[in-house]
């Protein structure tokens, strides 16, 4: 990473003086130590640089990107963006004024300086334990470090650094159908807990020695926090994407409609210290909390500068990561309830415990219809107890209906994230979730 003032001055130096323009720089370094089937298999490091120039010339906007951070390369990118504007989208390029944002310290040195040896040392005990318990683990440890800087011709000069240590593990029984999944992340690598997710995933593996097929039908599901985070990812695209709302692709015509169960309250807040903070969005708009769903009523959608202008309002601070497209919530939190996961299981006569959702796709955004499969551990619940493993199950589900059938909400949220985003998700018990026939290899 570079010095903040030096970096901003390089970007400001190449910023055109005669036309509206914006330069966004995003650099990321990702170090990974990977374990496959209880053995360390590979260490890798990836360094990514991304500079986006947006410029308005003669009423049109052009965009150009490069990964070479040098004055000549940046000047060429500016010149190309200007030229590209000749056939670009109609302007204006709406820029964020250079007003203040909250400075945050988001990049502990312990993460950026974590060595491959330190990561290997964290993974080694898991391999020993897994071997003794006849389990096979695939796991990765990542140390991510990033830097984001935005300057524009309205005087904006925003800058932040971020770091994130992540651990992800999938555990499989070497002899049976049991599967489990675990995840943990923290800005500070020294705070990374790998043992708790491993033990929880291992326990789930061992709780399921036999596997049963499942007839098609509507079931009660208990979605563990990781599965809720997966579901919220697709919920964000369908319900909270401001561009989809503006283009009438959303499943509701106007805000204020009661769509979901009373128990559901969702907001986006990248200033929450419990989550993964970020002071401003990718257009430099200072972040603030946005209430999306309040007691089942949809309150807001996410906007960037351009979408907001189309709706004659102001950005909510949700400009997307360069290279992605729509303004959607990236720091989404689902309000916790008061149920423990054990209570959810104990209160279920017949249902399904789901660890994760896999490959979730939108069949029809307006109908909020999605499909995907369960993964990394799906268990049958009968008479309040986990009784058998199930194969991965294919679901086709009306998401509005599912989120309108919340019976219980978990009492604690877990954090799932990336360098520039983070979801806080509790477990949810839903009474309506439709699965197709579930036999091994038929999802």
């Amino acid at each position: 990473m570079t010095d903040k003032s030096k970096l901003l001055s390089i970007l400001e130096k190449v910023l055109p003086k005669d036309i509206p323009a914006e330069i966004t720089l995003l650099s990321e370094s990702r170090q990974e130590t990977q374990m496959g089937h209880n053995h360390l298999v590979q260490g890798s490091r990836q360094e990514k640089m991304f500079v986006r120039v947006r410029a308005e010339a003669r009423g049109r906007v052009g965009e150009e990107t490069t990964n070479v951070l040098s004055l000549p390369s940046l000047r060429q990118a500016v010149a190309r963006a200007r030229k590209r504007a000749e056939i670009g989208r109609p302007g204006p390029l709406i820029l964020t004024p250079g007003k203040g944002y909250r400075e945050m310290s988001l990049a502990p040195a312990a993460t950026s300086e974590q060595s491959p040896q330190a990561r290997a040392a964290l993974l080694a005990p898991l391999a020993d334990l897994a071997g003794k318990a006849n389990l096979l683990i695939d796991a990765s440890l990542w140390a991510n470090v990033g830097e984001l800087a935005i300057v524009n011709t309205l005087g904006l000069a925003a800058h932040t650094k971020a770091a994130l240590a992540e651990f992800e593990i999938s555990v499989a029984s070497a002899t049976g159908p049991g599967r489990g999944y675990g995840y943990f992340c923290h800005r500070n690598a020294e705070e990374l807990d790998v043992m708790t997710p491993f033990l929880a995933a291992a326990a789930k593996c061992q709780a399921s020695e036999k596997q049963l097929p499942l007839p098609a039908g509507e079931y009660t599901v208990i979605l563990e926090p990781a599965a809720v985070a997966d579901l919220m990812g697709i919920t964000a695209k369908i319900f909270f994407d401001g561009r989809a709302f503006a283009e009438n692709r959303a499943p509701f015509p106007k805000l204020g409609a009661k769509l979901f169960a009373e128990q559901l309250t969702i907001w986006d807040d990248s200033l929450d210290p419990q989550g993964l903070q970020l002071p401003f969005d990718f257009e430099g708009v200072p972040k603030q909390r946005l209430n999306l769903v309040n007691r089942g009523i949809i309150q807001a959608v996410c906007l960037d500068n351009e979408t907001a202008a189309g709706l004659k309002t102001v950005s909510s601070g949700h400009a997307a990561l360069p290279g992605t497209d729509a303004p959607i919530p990236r720091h989404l939190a689902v309000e916790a309830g008061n149920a423990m996961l054990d209570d959810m299981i104990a209160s279920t006569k017949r249902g399904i415990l789901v660890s994760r959702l896999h490959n979730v796709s939108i069949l029809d955004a307006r109908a909020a219809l999605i499909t995907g499969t369960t993964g990394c551990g799906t268990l049958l619940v009968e008479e309040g107890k986990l009784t058998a493993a199930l194969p991965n199950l294919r679901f086709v589900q009306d998401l509005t209906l599912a989120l309108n059938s919340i019976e219980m909400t978990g009492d604690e949220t877990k954090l799932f994230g990336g360098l520039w985003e983070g979801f806080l998700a509790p477990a949810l018990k839903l009474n309506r979730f439709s699965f197709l026939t579930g036999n091994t290899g038929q999802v």
Partner: protein
Amino acid sequence: MTILEQLLNYGLDAAMAGGAEYAELTAVDIEEKKLHMQNARLASSGNREAGISVRLIAGGRWGFAAGPAANKTNLSRLVKAALEGARVQPPPVFSAGLSTVIPAQGSWTGPCVRDPFAIPDSQLAELLRAADQAMAIEGVSIRQGNLHFRREHRYYVNSEGSSNSQTFTYTGGSICALAFGQGEIQQRSWPSPGGSYAKEGYEYIEELDLPGHGRQIAQEAVALTKAPSCPQEALDLVLTGSLLASQVHYTLGYRLQLGMPGAVHPQQASRLKLSSSAITIYADAALTGGAGSFGFDSEGVKAQSFPLLENGRIVNFLSGRETAAAAGRFSGGCMRSGCWLEPPVPWMTNLVIKPGTCSLAELAGGIERGLLLDTPRVFGVSPDLRGFAAQAELGWLIEDGVITHMVKNPFYRGNSRAFWSGCDAAAAAAHQKNLGLMDKGIAVGHSIVPVRIRGVRVGDSR
């Protein structure tokens, strides 16, 4: 020797001096141009990037590092990171091993008759505008068109004496019409929702004829909002177009990527039929214009052409040097990476279905009650890759061998082997089409002929 080649050799020397048993370095230089039009509103963007990746074995383990290295200092840092990544403790139980190859040197340039970067942007915009106007009919709410061009110069060296330089031109395009019905969105795309790609020049865009297909897909999107639902029953299917490409890609190709999660293990191969005898598939990395074509793979192994499935039986795999060595084979030259920042993996190149003898009319003619399906709206696979689910954008109902009317939301799923075991015919070479899709950033070519699958349970996804 160019400056870049000198830099690669410097990095190679540094890796070997640092204790690597094997090392390979790849440098890329990329130029890209994208145009997107939605409802006559054009957006244009470009991209330039360059970088180097270092992949090595040290102490029996793989190490990998990649970054925008433009000088010796940055490259030395990458080499050091790759060596550190490989030398994690404790010592390896299994050392990484590579299959033997004869070192290859050379250069390769993909076909490009009309350089897309030499075509004026105004001409590209005009093409999208013509397609947009063709789709502008009552009932269509959103019209989209996309063009994507990418030129990549790639330089490679390894410690066994292989070296090559390659130049690829990727060209892709698509159009899409969205019509809003009562609480639903119906979509029609050409030739597929994500676009079809070829390693060719602008001539591929001309071949796709986006404006020429605009009116038809727009009309179909509107008609779908009023069409009856897909019947829920077991029907015979004729699969074609980009849906068939996806079906082959996700339910056959994925199973043959040796060593990848969900792939068939070589020891199972002799006992396992992945499909009926009607299906024979070749991997052909040298297919002219194929999206997955190249001169050398990411390990410097020359492009190859070989059968993968013969009459449904597995006869070979898509392999790289490490996975081939583990299976006692030679590399199939199939190591690929979607982005220079990612380590390469065994992946599909171009998959070619061997044509059969039927005409399309004969395929449909042999069906009492069935569906003709062409373009995927959603295609998903299960985590273990053994099952899949698909929804086509539209279906044409076939009754007594004749196409009668369109149905909406046709959804089907199943076990991949069971599905393909129902294939009883492939169409003749006259119906062959080349399509290319991007999966995880890797361009894969599919040369397809329509196929007929018997007895598939279908229904409306709702």
